[in-house]
């Protein structure tokens, strides 16, 4: 769990997770294009930390390695600290927030 928090404690790594949430199964080059403010070396390093934390899973197909978001570790954190009752409330709150933001 320490590794998960460490991995999440960086804006660049969170951005990588966002990019994979938006489009799962991207190569290193695709991710570098999307996060153009980071160097290729930086992206590689971030991906390694995310993979060590179990937040990113890679799969090889032919010559390419694809990166996928693995939401399980984050879900386990949520299960640990958020009761189900509160989770429903949070879901309602985030739906409300999304609806309000869409309106404005």
């Amino acid at each position, binding site marked *: 769990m320490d590794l998960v928090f460490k991995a999440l404690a960086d804006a660049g790594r969170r951005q990588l997770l966002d990019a994979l949430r938006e489009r*799962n199964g991207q190569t290193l080059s695709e991710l570098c294009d999307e996060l153009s403010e980071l160097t290729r070396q930086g992206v590689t390093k971030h991906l390694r930390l995310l993979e060590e934390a179990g937040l990113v899973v890679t799969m090889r197909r032919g010559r390419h390695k694809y990166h996928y978001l693995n939401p399980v570790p984050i879900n386990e954190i949520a*299960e640990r600290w958020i009761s*189900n009752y509160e989770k429903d409330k949070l879901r309602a709150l985030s739906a409300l927030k999304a609806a309000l933001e869409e309106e404005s």
Partner: protein
Amino acid sequence: MNNPAMVHVTYIETTPEKLWAALTSGAFTKLYWFGRRIESDWKVGSPVRFYDSADDSLTDSGEVLVYDEPKTLAYTFKNEFLEERRDDEPGRVTFTIEPAGPKVVKLQVVHDRIDADQVEGWRNGWGPILANLKTYLETGHTLQIDL
């Protein structure tokens, strides 16, 4: 694997054989899979069906693609419950089980051939299913999670 695809990896304190039984037996799935009972004779090409254990209605159906006990299980499935989704192409789910320590098993679930507009719904589905499965195998009871 086709995009979009969803990948979930979880580590469970159990044995590959117990996990295999939990994935392939309706008596087990109904305990952690939103009350759905899975049924199949598990021969490649045979039908796989999910029933709602509350009223025995068919909710999803598909076909066995791979049955390599206790390592790889793959089947297709599509929703039979919602009128508007009757004509959807079936999705495919592949479970891969590997020992990851003396008492720990790594389960990888790849769900692909998903319609882009259903990714979000499935994201909300797999979380509780896998959390429940893990809790069930490790403690013998499941969490009470409502969708």
